[in-house]
């Protein structure tokens, strides 16, 4: 730059920088605000406007209560499987050596990209009339489709990636040395896992579990297809909302939707908390 400025810029560099700075931040706030925050406010208003009596009506409805319980049950079962198996797969992905690991990694990510209706479709093709496994289960009088088991299965499918995507890279980063040290000091594989590995992946694991849970609670496409939506039997909270709107019971729909939203926000705080703890890393 020449020492003598021939033209005086309209704005000094500092001001321009601050304008861009401010501009970008404003755009971000605006976009995120309109896209995410506004609808949250919308539903809060819609659900609270009719007043507390609407809430009592909903909670007195046995179908609603059943829906909540069913959501909880399915989520818990799915969570158990995806957490335990998630840790297993993570260990294998990060520590074991074999050809085709990239394929395994892609398989883990697939549920993120597959439409939940395709998942439901798959379940129907496997367990429905004429399905691959239908005869086996029918012979033993076990109901998979249009019953809770299939709902659990599809929920497991869609929650597979979350724990693994958090824990596997974490294990990779941590390295195997602490485990090796534990073994030289006499610890068995199991002891090493519980006393060394698990504490080290604690926060990442909880983060993955929180994400899994939020996803499982919110599942609708797949369970819609496999459940048959039998109110009081195979209707989860999300299916309840769907039916409410279908039948013109908008308010009930809003109320249950708001409760789910609130539960998710709580989960979200958990998620953020665990994520921050994980980023900080380390002790206690």
């Amino acid at each position, binding site marked *: 730059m020449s020492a003598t400025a021939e033209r005086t810029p309209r704005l000094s560099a500092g001001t321009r920088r601050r304008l861009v700075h401010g501009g970008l931040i404003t755009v971000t706030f605006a976009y995120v605000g309109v896209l995410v925050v506004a609808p949250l406010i919308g539903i809060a208003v819609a659900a609270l406007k009719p007043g507390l009596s609407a809430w009592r009506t909903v909670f007195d409805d046995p179908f609603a209560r059943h829906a909540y319980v069913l959501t909880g049950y399915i989520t818990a079962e799915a969570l158990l499987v995806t957490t335990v198996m998630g840790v297993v797969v993570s260990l294998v992905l990060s520590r074991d050596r074999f050809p085709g690991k990239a394929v395994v990694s892609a*398989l883990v990510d697939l549920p993120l990209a597959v439409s*939940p209706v395709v998942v439901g479709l798959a379940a129907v*093709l496997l367990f429905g009339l004429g399905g691959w496994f239908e005869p086996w289960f029918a012979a033993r009088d076990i109901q998979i489709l249009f019953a809770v088991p299939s709902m659990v299965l599809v929920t497991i499918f869609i929650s*597979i990636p979350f724990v693994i995507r958090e824990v596997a890279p974490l294990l990779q980063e941590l390295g195997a040395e602490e485990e090796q040290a534990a073994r030289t000091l006499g610890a068995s594989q199991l002891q090493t896992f519980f006393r060394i590995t698990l504490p080290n992946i604690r926060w990442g694991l909880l983060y993955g579990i929180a994400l899994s849970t939020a996803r499982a609670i*919110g599942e609708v*496409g797949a369970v819609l297809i496999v459940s048959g939506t039998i109110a009081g039997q195979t209707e989860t909270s999300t299916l309840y909302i769907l039916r409410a709107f279908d039948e013109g019971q908008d308010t009930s729909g809003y109320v249950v939707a708001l409760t789910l*939203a609130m539960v998710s*926000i709580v989960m979200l705080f958990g998620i953020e908390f665990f994520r921050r703890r994980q980023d900080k890393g380390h002790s206690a």
Partner: protein
Amino acid sequence: MSSSGLDVAQIAPGPTSPGPGRARARLRPAWGRLGLRGLALLYLGLMVVLPLSAVVTKGFGGGIASLQDAFSQLGARQALILTIEMAALVAVINAVFGTITAYVLTRYRFAGRNVIATVVDIPFAIPTLVTGVMLVALYGPNSPVGGFLARHGVHIIFAKLGILVALLFVTLPLVVRTVQPVMQELDRGEEEAAQVLGARRWRTFRQVMLPHLRAGIVAGSLLAFARALGEFGAVVIVSGNIANKTLTAPVLIAQLISGFKDPRAAAAIGTILFGLAFVLVLIVERLVGHKELREHAA
């Protein structure tokens, strides 16, 4: 963990070996490790490979011809086109805004930064159906905002715009959370060198940061695209599912499957959706995903 599972190698010791004749290592089978590997593969095989192969088998069951057949009926083609259109639009829009958000979150300090970070994660936590409900609550004909917009000819609910907004909501965190870590890992040294040489923010961004970020942004957009392709819950309430106008492929599949109306057509459309998703995942893996997992220590 210990060595590869080689069979006992009977490598004859060389001439300098002091010991008597051939020495052999007793190999204890590594049950623990093999068992774990088998368990992991069984789990993924049963839970992921099996169901998806069922879909593809059924979808391709009658050959390509039947695919095209199912395809051309029932407004399936319109549904697929609409779905792909919307998904592409959403991927592009969120690529831009998601990157801006990621940039602002990683490079600036300002009041409310943590709030934005948390808010960006909300769509990850909220059930998709609830998203649709929220949008109806906010923009539906009965709400003040919705009424206002309708009077000015802007229809969100039961229109394509609603689908767009719903998908933007749902996919925003995907882009941000894919781009943000990449941005954070960038070597500030390069940016500072550029600034010292006189480059301003936009040029620094375009010429120094963007080349490194490209892979991450594309990956995030592809994930957003794949997600948007398959989205059901957020769309089903907002769009009104008007055939040939606001009916998306996932909703169509659900309609075809319930009551066993036409499982084969459903499978055909599902296969197409799945095929697209599969290819996208592969590309994303290549670009950004799990590089760490593919590098093993020697």
